[in-house]
Structure formats: C-alpha cells, structure tokens
C-alpha cells in the first residue's frame, strides 16, 4: 500500500514536472533565441511572455486535426502518441536525488537505451504514414541517423559501466560522490580520454534528440518541416513536446553518467538541486548551440559518426579496459 501511494505521488509529481518542462522549455528556447538574435523574444503574453506557452497550447488544441487524403490513417494518428510514450516512460529510471527515484532499476541504463530507440521508430512511422515525400525522406534520415549515433553512444555508455561496474543509474551517481574531480568527466585515472568521451556522448545526445546541427529529420531548408510536415494542431504539438521531453532525458542521462548527477561539486549539500542545475545548464547549451550553428548535411552527419565518433569511442573503450586491467 505504501509503495502504491509512493508510486502514485511520483506519477503526479513527474507529470507536473514534465508538463512544466515541456511548456517552459519552449519558452526558454524562444526567449534564448530572441536574445541571441538581438531580439526580445516573447514579451506580450504575461510578464516576460511567461504565459506564452499557455497561449500556444490553447492555440494548438483548438486547431482541427486534418488527416491528409493519402496518409496511412492509423499510422498517421498513432505516431505522435508513440513518440511521446517512451519519452515520458524514461523518467521512471532517472535519479533526481539520492532517494528521489521513481523506480530504481538495476538495469536502468539498458532500459534507457531500449526505449530511446523507439523514438526514432515513431519518427519513421510519422514520416511514412503522412504520405508525403518530404516526410518519407525525413523519416528515413531520422532512422539511419538514430542507428548511426546509437553505436558511439552505447559504446561510451559501456565505458562508464566498466568504470562503475553497474548499470543502475543511482549507483553510478553514488560512485561519483565527493569533489568535482570524482565526476566521470574528470576521471582521468580511469581513462585519459574521459573528457573526449563526454564530448562524444554530448554530440550523440544532440543527434539523438534531433537538434540542430543534426536536425536532419526536420531540416526546414530542404524538407519543409520533415516528418511533421503534414501534422497540425496537437499532432504537431505532441511531436514538439516529445522533442523537449527527449531533450530533458538526454541531458539528464548525460548529467547522471558524466556530471555526477545529484552530487555536489564541492562535496557539501548534495541533492536534486545540483541535478537540476546541471541538467538545465546542458539544456541551455543545447539551445545555445541550436541558435549558433548551421545544419550539417546528411552525409556530413554520417561521416562524423563513422569517421570520428565511433573510432574515438572504440579507442576510449579499449583504453578504459586497459586502465582497469592494469591499475
């Protein structure tokens, strides 16, 4: 009974946290973009435009859902929901604080990767189901991109598993306690390439979340709006929210694996606030990157993965194995 209440309260809290994040990350992005571009961003709806997400949501919800004539109706309808489900589900495994975990899995990392690949699948379904050539190209691109970037991401994650000897996310964080040099990014004693592997993981999470410069799935310069060209109203809204949910997940995972999760950099007052601080800093860097760089080409993207990221992560894996064996 106790467990049930705990789970229920977690569910409610997570839903609230998620909802707030999804709504206000959009606001953060627009405001950030505005200020980076010498503009002000949303301003008129509420103070500092803070009610803008509400207005946007209302607008999206009041729109008619249109199914294109030559769309595959069931696929078209279920794709936005399918993107949202894994994104929400993944929050179950994330340790926000030492005791603030909805559910502690001993294989949390594995579950993360398993569900994350469903996201790419749903993009393909959405692109295919729309019956639009642009969407189809976008869907095909998104899948090959996800596949290409999951490899270095997984290999890098394996090095962490090798260092910590655990797949439990909370356990991984626990091992990074103490001071800042105990974070996995700076664990040069385990592998001298650790900062590089952090960079690899960071780039991969950029690519996995379909963010600029890797937004091949929706590059508007070429494919109009990519896989969600045909979606309007809440269909589009769900895709957009899923993007932000994936953003939160990606940044949380990076925080957990490399930046010590809820651990404090100075050794005192560890707790969820550190986690959120780190996560939001990463999210901000995602936004910052998005409004700074142009998009790569599809070929450039695959080149980066196969020529740079995968060799680096493999070398890193070998080095780590060597270090662990020798020392």
């Amino acid at each position: 009974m106790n467990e049930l209440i705990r789970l229920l309260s977690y569910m409610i809290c997570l839903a609230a946290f998620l909802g707030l994040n999804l709504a206000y990350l959009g606001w953060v992005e627009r405001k950030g973009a505005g200020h980076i571009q010498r503009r002000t961003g949303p301003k008129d709806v509420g103070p500092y435009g803070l009610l803008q997400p509400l207005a946007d949501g209302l607008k999206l919800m009041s729109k008619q859902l249109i199914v294109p004539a030559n769309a595959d109706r069931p696929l078209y309808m279920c794709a936005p929901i399918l993107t949202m489900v894994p994104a929400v589900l993944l929050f179950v495994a994330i340790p926000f604080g030492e005791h603030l975990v909805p559910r502690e899995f001993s294989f949390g990392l594995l579950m993360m990767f398993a569900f994350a690949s469903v996201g790419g699948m749903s993009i393909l379904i959405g692109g295919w189901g729309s019956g639009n050539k642009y969407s189809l190209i976008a869907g095909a691109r998104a899948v090959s991109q996800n596949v290409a970037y999951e490899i270095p991401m997984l290999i890098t994650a394996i090095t962490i598993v090798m260092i910590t000897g655990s797949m439990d996310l909370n356990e991984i964080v626990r091992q990074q306690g103490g001071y800042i040099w105990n974070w996995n990014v700076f664990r040069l004693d385990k592998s001298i390439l650790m900062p590089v592997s952090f960079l690899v993981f960071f780039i991969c999470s950029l690519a996995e979340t379909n963010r600029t410069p890797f937004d091949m799935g929706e590059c508007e310069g070429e494919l109009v709006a990519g896989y969600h060209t045909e979606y309007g109203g809440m269909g589009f809204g769900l895709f957009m929210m899923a993007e932000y949910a994936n953003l939160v997940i990606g940044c949380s995972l990076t925080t957990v694996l490399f930046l010590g999760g809820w651990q404090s950099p100075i050794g005192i007052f560890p707790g969820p606030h550190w986690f959120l601080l780190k996560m939001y800093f990463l999210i901000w860097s995602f936004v910052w990157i998005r409004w700074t760089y142009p998009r790569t080409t599809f070929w450039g993207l695959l080149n980066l993965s196969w020529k740079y990221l995968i060799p680096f992560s493999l070398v890193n894996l070998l080095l780590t194995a060597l270090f662990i064996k020798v020392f």
Partner: protein
Amino acid sequence: MSSLAQSQLRETFELNIGPQHPATHGVLRIKVVMDGEYIDRAEPILGYIHRMHEKMGENRTWNQFWPNMGRLDYLSAMAYNHCYAGLMERAAGIEVPERAEYIRVITAELNRIQSHLLGFGAYIMDLGGFTPLMYAMDEREQILDLLESVTGSRLTYCYFRFGGVYNDIDDDFITGTRAFLKRFRPQIPMYHKLVTGNAILMDRLIGVGPISADMCRKYGATGPVLRGSGVNYDIRRNEPYSVYPELDFDIPVYKECDSMARYMVRMDEMVQSCRIIENALNKLPEGPVMAEKVPKALKPPKGDYHYAVEAARGTFSMRTVSDGTNTSYRMRLRSPTYSNVSLFEEASRGMLLSDALAFLGSLDPVIPEMDR
C-alpha cells in the same frame, strides 16, 4: 554520382520543390527527379510571379515606366533604376550633372550592401543557421532607414529620374552614411568568425556546386557567380558607367568555382561597396542634381539602345527599341538571375538534395526579377 544511380535497378521518384518551399525564397518551383537522396534531373519551372513588365513598357510612356524598375529586383532596385536612367539618357542624349551621378552611385552601393546582407542571411538560413539572418537584418535596417530618408520608400525605390535624381541628399544622410559605415565595417569580420569559419558551414559549402568559367560563359551567368568562378568581369570596371571609373575599388574574384567562392565574393563585395561609398562621399561635388532641359515627354530618336549595369546579382541590361514616340516599341529586360538559374539544371545533376539547395542558395536568386 551514387552507385545507386548507376545501377540498373534504380527507382526514381519525383519531388516537387516549391512553389512554396522555405528554400526557394519566393515562388520558384523546381521539379526534381530524385534517386534516393540524389538528384537525377532538376527542372526549374518559372512564371509564378510573371507580370509582363516588357509589355507594360510598350503601353506606358517612358516616364510612367519608372515604378516598374523598382519592382523587378526588390532587393537592389537602385541598380535597376540606374540602368533605366542610363539607357534613356543614352537614347535621348541627356547630360547628367556630376553630383547626381555621385548620389546615384552612393545609393546604388548602399542598396547593393543591403541586398548582399539579406542574401547572406537568407543563405545561411537555408543552411539551417537562423541567427546570422537576424544580425544581417539589423544592419540592413540601418541602410533601409538611410535610403528611406532620401527616397521616401524602403524597398521599391523610384528615386532616379532622366537627367538626375528626384531630390538632393542632405547632410543628415551623409553623416548617417558615414556613421553606418563605421558601425558596419567591424561587423563583417564578426560574420566571418561566426559563419564563414564555422567547420559545419565549410563542410557544406566547400566543393559544392562547382561551375566552371566556361559553363558560366555558355550560360551567360554573371555577377558573383561568374566572379566566384575566377573570371574578373564586372560591368562597373569592364564597361564603366556613371562615375565608377573615378572611384577606387577592387573586384573580388575567387578561383574555387564552388558555393563558398560565390559566398565569399558577396562578402568581399560588401567591403568594396563600403569603400566606394566612402570614396564617393569624399568626392561628392556641389551642384544641381537634375539636368536642365529634360523634356517632360521624352521622345528618343528611332533605333535601339542598350545599357548594362552591375546589379547585386550580375549584369542587368536593357535593350529598348524606340520608334520615336513617347512609348517604347519594345522593351527587353535581361535579368541576371534568369541566366544564373538556367545553369541549375545542368549543374545539379547527381547532386545530393541538401547540396543542391545549398547550391541554389549560392546563386542568390530573386524570383520577381527572374520572372519579370
């Protein structure tokens, strides 16, 4: 070309890029036969914004044709005004006061910077970077304000007249222009740092869309496209008009023939335009801005006349056949984008879709000018 394209078992599909597409800047439509991500054949389809300016020229008096000149290339309307003024002055033998010519050059060059700024911003936006567009727009607004203070309009200028300009520039404009130049000059290195030097952008532009000098010649491509292919051809130098021979500037030429070269030509041209403006402001003579004795109803003698100027996108030339009346018998407008885009079909064969759009952006098409 992809190995797929060469194999027997290829499956192609048609993709319709445009007329409403974020990368076509207006209403250009390109019918593409795609082979996966590769372009098998691309055919630009024009005419979505065709307004038949040439026929309008036959129905309006010479004076009444003025507003049309601002509506061809709405981004560098001054150069088009300049061409028409030059054409009719050549035909009717009108001497233009020197001050007027200097004012024409200053405004036309300001307009050229403005056009290149938007071209640069929009091009980077095509490539996915949204921020440079906003910075470029910021600078562009300054120019538009300056030009508005003189001409009264922001985009579709109708400022030149046969024998001079509509009204004189004032001291506010001169100080404003100087202040703008001072403010604008350091921006270009910033653009280079933010955009040109960016590894992602270099990856996208270098070696993309090669056009040889000979291909440019065959297709009549001009402007930054030609100069990006290593040909030093600029009407301002090679067929000097107005007071350009008296001014001090260089013609940027790049030999790489790729999209990056064309992009760099535009960036360097902005610097050169700054030089021209500064130079012209220093040399600006006093005097009237309108020639005396310009007849209200112009009737150039019979025959046909030709005049060419360097617009922001290349050679804009006009050929008019006059039959001695107050309207033209035939007015032909040769727009640079028309020729520049005509080589897209040949050059884009076997290109990746994303490269092809990067290539199209490097041609910097302005659709209303192309369709006329």
